[in-house]
């Protein structure tokens, strides 16, 4: 019944988060760029959100609309199909990445296109559309500045929103001079941007086919929406005579009215602006004559999403509107960057989405629910209230149970024993305090310069990828009691 995502994430081969994070942590340029970006966006986002007195009400509505949509997704999919067709568009259904890629390549070939212009779309990254088109002799030009940079550098994205965040201006200058054959180029961002504008303008004017993702698709009207900053989205969805949009089936919203919620939630959460520079909404091809593409195709992509939907706790991951606020809020992401997640969906949302899309039981994705300290910052900033920590814990449980059933571990596995003991200890205050006292006495042979670098025996796995702070001389509970007593 369920096929799961195809090898879009190469799950069998990907290293674990902990292995990849070691590489990222050693790259100081990457850490500097990401640290600077995350902090800057975090502060701006807080200010943009504080402007709206009804932010919590908007979040709740944003969550509820998605809940309604997901619980009746089959009805909404059929309604969307009908609306798009009524507006003169074509609708295609793709069970997996390969099917989506073949549909899109087929449309391009029908129009004898040997190149297409693309506006940034994570869904097409997920299906590895560019590689597929290349294999069919069709060149896909990324038109988002950051996507262009990493495409020319032959690399992959490290952040949903600012994919080239790991590159500095000198590196970008070098890439442009080499790949676009430009001489005498400064490393000023405005000069670099001008080069991209001129190069891409020619592509926009000559392309026969544009390819986009979708931020939202409206079941009631068939309207598709792309939210962007640079204008390349407007170019791709207006200039080429043929437009193909790849949309994950979870991107549906029921009504046009629902934009009143998401157009407030998304820009402030994403780029910390009151509104992003450009948003395009189009409804099939039935607008004014000669305005925009004459042919519109909407490709609806499953690729593991129905597997996510089947998990009653995990399905809330499909609420995601791809704002990337959780990435910027995450202390783990801030230190490792996006590449450590080995997925097109990095950060906290990726840690719950990727393992569900590809299925539990593969070492790389299985490690992702552990890429978190469960601090909850992601949940707090999520504009559609996805309880990421809840899903992380839920998925950790699934990973352990899967290992147990596969005979890889058992009731006596140290992590299992530890989790059971922890549960018992945390539920009984006196047990908890005596455990702390015991730990303080028992740790002295292990602590060196304020941290425990390795635990003995079966517990060594715990410290292989983290240092532990020693138990303080006085616990919070002891301090609290003393303070109250005085």
């Amino acid at each position, binding site marked *: 019944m369920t096929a799961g995502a195809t090898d879009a994430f190469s799950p069998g081969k990907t290293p674990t988060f902990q292995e990849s994070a070691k590489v990222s942590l050693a790259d100081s340029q990457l850490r500097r760029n990401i640290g600077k970006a995350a902090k800057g966006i975090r502060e701006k986002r807080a200010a943009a959100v504080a402007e709206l007195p009804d932010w919590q009400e908007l979040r709740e509505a944003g969550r509820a609309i998605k809940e309604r949509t997901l619980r009746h997704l089959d009805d909404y999919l059929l309604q969307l199909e009908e609306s798009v067709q009524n*507006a003169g568009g074509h609708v295609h259904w793709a*069970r997996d990445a390969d099917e989506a890629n073949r549909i899109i390549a087929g449309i391009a070939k029908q129009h004898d296109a040997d190149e297409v212009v693309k506006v940034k779309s994570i869904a097409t990254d997920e299906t590895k559309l560019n590689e597929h088109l290349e294999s069919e002799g069709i060149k896909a030009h990324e038109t988002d500045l950051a996507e262009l940079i990493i495409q020319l550098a032959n690399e992959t994205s490290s952040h949903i929103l600012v994919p080239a965040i790991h590159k500095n*201006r000198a590196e970008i200058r070098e890439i442009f001079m080499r790949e676009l054959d430009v001489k005498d180029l400064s490393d000023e*961002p405005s000069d670099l*941007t001008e080069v991209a*504008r001129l190069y891409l303008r020619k592509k926009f004017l000559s392309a026969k086919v544009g390819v986009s993702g979708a931020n939202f698709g409206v079941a009631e009207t068939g309207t598709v929406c792309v939210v962007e900053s*640079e204008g390349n989205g407007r170019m791709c969805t207006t200039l080429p005579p043929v437009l193909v949009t790849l949309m994950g089936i979870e991107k549906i919203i029921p009504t046009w009215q629902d934009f009143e919620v998401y157009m407030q939630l998304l820009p402030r959460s994403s780029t910390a602006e009151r509104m992003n520079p450009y948003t395009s909404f189009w409804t099939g091809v039935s607008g004014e004559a000669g305005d925009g593409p004459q042919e519109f195709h909407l490709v609806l992509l499953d690729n593991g999403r129905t*597997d996510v939907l089947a998990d009653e706790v995990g399905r809330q991951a499909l609420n995601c509107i791809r704002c990337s606020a959780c990435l910027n809020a995450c202390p783990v992401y801030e230190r490792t960057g996006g590449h450590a997640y080995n997925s097109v969906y990095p950060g906290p949302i990726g840690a719950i989405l990727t393992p569900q899309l590809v299925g539990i039981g593969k070492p790389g994705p299985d490690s992702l629910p552990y890429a978190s300290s469960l601090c909850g910052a992601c949940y707090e900033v999520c504009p559609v209230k996805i309880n990421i920590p809840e899903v992380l814990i839920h998925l950790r449980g699934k990973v352990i149970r899967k290992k147990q059933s596969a005979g890889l571990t058992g009731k006596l596995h140290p992590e299992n024993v530890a989790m059971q003991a922890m549960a018992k200890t945390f539920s009984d205050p006196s047990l908890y305090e005596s455990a702390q006292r015991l730990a303080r006495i028992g740790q002295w042979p292990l602590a060196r310069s304020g941290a425990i670098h390795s635990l003995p025996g079966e517990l060594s796995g715990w410290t292989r990828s983290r240092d532990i702070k020693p138990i303080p001389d006085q616990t919070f509970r002891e301090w609290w009691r003393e303070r109250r007593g005085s």
Partner: protein
Amino acid sequence: MSNAKETILARTRHALRDVPRDERPEDVSIERGYRTRDEASRKEIVDRFAEYVAEYEATVHRVAEADLPKSIQEALERRGVEKLVVPSDVPEDWLPEGVELLRESPEDHLSNEDLDGSDGVLTGCALGIAQTGTIVLDSGEAQGRRILTLLPDYHLCVVREEQIVGLVPEAIEKLGVAVKDKGRAITFISGPSATSDIELERVEGVHGPRTLEVLIVGAS
């Protein structure tokens, strides 16, 4: 092998087997407790719109109705526009003198090359949103096709005070007719295009018009 549509719908229904069969979409309640009307005065709303548009690095002027033609003329002269794109239904008294007009008509569209080679475009708009400093185009009166405001490097946009709404929900409601009954494309413009893709340094203007100038027209 069943077709993709049937398979995806069957997978979806299987995944949702915990949802009671008789549950309807409207049974999942949506609490819309957020603001849907801006209670501020008209003056405050218009002032806020002007302030927020200007914060996006767009140039904003407040002009009286009677002075509009003069203000348009002055803006184009300041910019040094020689070839100006105008939609077919722009009011006659907006049209400047001493400028070559590339006037689109419904039967005879301007080519992309004409648009690409122009110096700017003059349009009206569907409405403005004060809360976000957004100009909305819906291909309606005095706006023309989407491409007209995309290829030229300079966009001079006329917004009448009465077209400005306070909040996003008010704008979405007003646009409902253009979308649902006419299937028109809608474009939200909030300042000129921008990128922060290189070291997060903001650069104004990537692909759309790199300069946006807005004339807000009031009664006096």
